[in-house]
């Protein structure tokens, strides 16, 4: 569906995007993560055809963006970081204008406007001047213009920035409804949001994609196979059992109550196997009350890649 083939973008001598390649399939929801200035927006602008690439190609559905920009743009809905709104127009007039520019036939324009007004919950704002709307409503109008022509690809740059939790939740729901029907690319700084929206994450740093994996794999990557065991028994015997267990190393032990401890252990192997550990604990007279794997967070992975301390 979307193929970025070794794309690079220079602004003067500065390389904003550096030899980026990836493929995104139909119906995928992909999150772009990166610090400010990492190159997310430039990358999105090249995918939408707003910026030409300095090197490489953007291929959408087998068509080269540089050769077929109009037919490709018909299939892309784009919400830039700042919603591109004409502040003196009414919501309805703006959406009608967007519909006309997106090649919707005059007969269908009103139906399309009504549909996105309903989908984006803008019913009570349709006649209002855009400049009088709150930030959340403006964002909804921006999303409405992006989806008015029911594009196959939707690219949203920071769609929830500056919104309150209720508005964020609504926009997240809206994006959720697009899953499987549309290919969606979302960029955001809010890592928890990506965890809830995207199924695949690309972490961008200094114009390069440094991680491109499914969210599940990132959250369960090798470096986060710590486990927590709540166990009843004698402390010295518990410590001995963990030392004897194949592939585990004790990191910490805290007393929860009399003879009940919470042990944090690191799994040194790639494959999690608790059998030996459990057997050793039982052999040492301990009773396992609870065992759970520490789940990684996207935030940890993001910060690790960007070499920042938590």
């Amino acid at each position: 569906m979307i193929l970025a083939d070794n794309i690079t973008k220079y602004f003067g001598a500065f390389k904003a995007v550096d030899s980026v390649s990836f493929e995104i399939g139909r119906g995928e929801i992909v999150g772009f993560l990166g610090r400010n200035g990492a190159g997310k927006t430039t990358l999105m602008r090249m995918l939408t055809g707003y910026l030409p690439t300095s090197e490489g190609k953007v291929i959408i559905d087998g068509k080269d963006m540089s050769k077929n920009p109009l037919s490709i743009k018909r299939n892309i809905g784009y919400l830039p970081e700042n919603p591109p709104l004409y502040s003196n127009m009414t919501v309805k007039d703006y959406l009608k204008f967007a519909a006309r520019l997106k090649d919707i036939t005059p007969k269908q324009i009103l139906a399309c406007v009504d549909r996105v007004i309903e989908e984006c919950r803008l019913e009570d704002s349709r006649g209002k001047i855009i400049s009088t709307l709150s930030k959340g409503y403006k964002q909804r109008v921006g999303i409405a213009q992006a989806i008015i022509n029911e594009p196959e690809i939707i690219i949203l740059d920071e769609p929830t920035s500056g919104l309150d939790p209720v508005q964020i939740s609504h926009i997240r729901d809206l994006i959720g409804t697009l899953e499987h029907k549309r290919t969606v690319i979302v960029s955001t700084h809010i890592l928890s949001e990506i965890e809830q929206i995207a199924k695949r994450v690309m972490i961008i740093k200094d114009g390069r994609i440094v991680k491109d994996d499914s969210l599940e794999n990132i959250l369960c990557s090798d470096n986060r196979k710590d486990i927590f065991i709540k166990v009843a028994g004698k402390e010295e015997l518990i410590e001995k059992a963990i030392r004897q267990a194949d592939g585990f190393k004790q990191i910490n032990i805290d007393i929860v109550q009399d003879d009940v401890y919470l042990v944090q252990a690191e799994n040194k192997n790639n494959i999690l196997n608790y059998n030996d550990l459990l057997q050793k604990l039982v052999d040492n007279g301990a009773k396992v009350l609870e065992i759970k794997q520490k789940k990684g967070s996207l935030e940890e992975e993001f910060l690790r890649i960007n070499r920042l301390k938590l």
Partner: protein
Amino acid sequence: MRKILDIAKKELSSYFRTPIAYIVLIVAAIVFNMFFFIIVDNSQEASLRDVFKVMEFLFVFIVPILTMKVFAEEKATGTMEFLMTTPTTNNQIVLGKYLGSLAFFGLMVAPTGVYYLILEIFSSPDRATILTGYLGILIEGAFFISVGIMCSSWSKNQIVSAILSYSILFMLYFSLSFIKYFSGIAEQIIRYTNIMSHSENFLVGLITVSDLIYFISGILFCLVITRVSIDKRI
């Protein structure tokens, strides 16, 4: 063509969403009316030639105010990104915006048609001269607008784009005042590029190929430069 008209319609209506359009229309109407009555009363001529001269002089000052926002505002608010990511060509964007501004200019000139009616009722005016005078004013205005739009495409800041427009229009309009300081080829260039050298013929009832080429090529040149600066995302 439909998209060019859609953009032109949006551009024209955007003028009326701010007080500037109303102020410009009212001020222009008052000044034109005032000069029309003063000129006709003093000269006792059934001609609009001097009124047209006042109009072209005022347009040098008014047009940059009208056109400063055309691209600068779109760039500053981010709507340029919206326009350019829709299936719309850059030519359609430039022409649509140009036509919208031209339509507003037409609205500014249209009420002056009353002057012709007044002259027709109370005297026997030279219709051909008035017609060529209007053609001259319209083509000159179209050129001014293309200069203004070109300058607007060079900056995100409306004030900067207005200053650039004023600089170019002043240079082209008042350059004959400095002709005595130049000689040879420089003098010839200044004479040819001066707007008044080409607008005068229209006001006396003459339509020359040279004048038409000057204005039409000037308009095309500015629109092509506008298109290039949009392409380059300047």
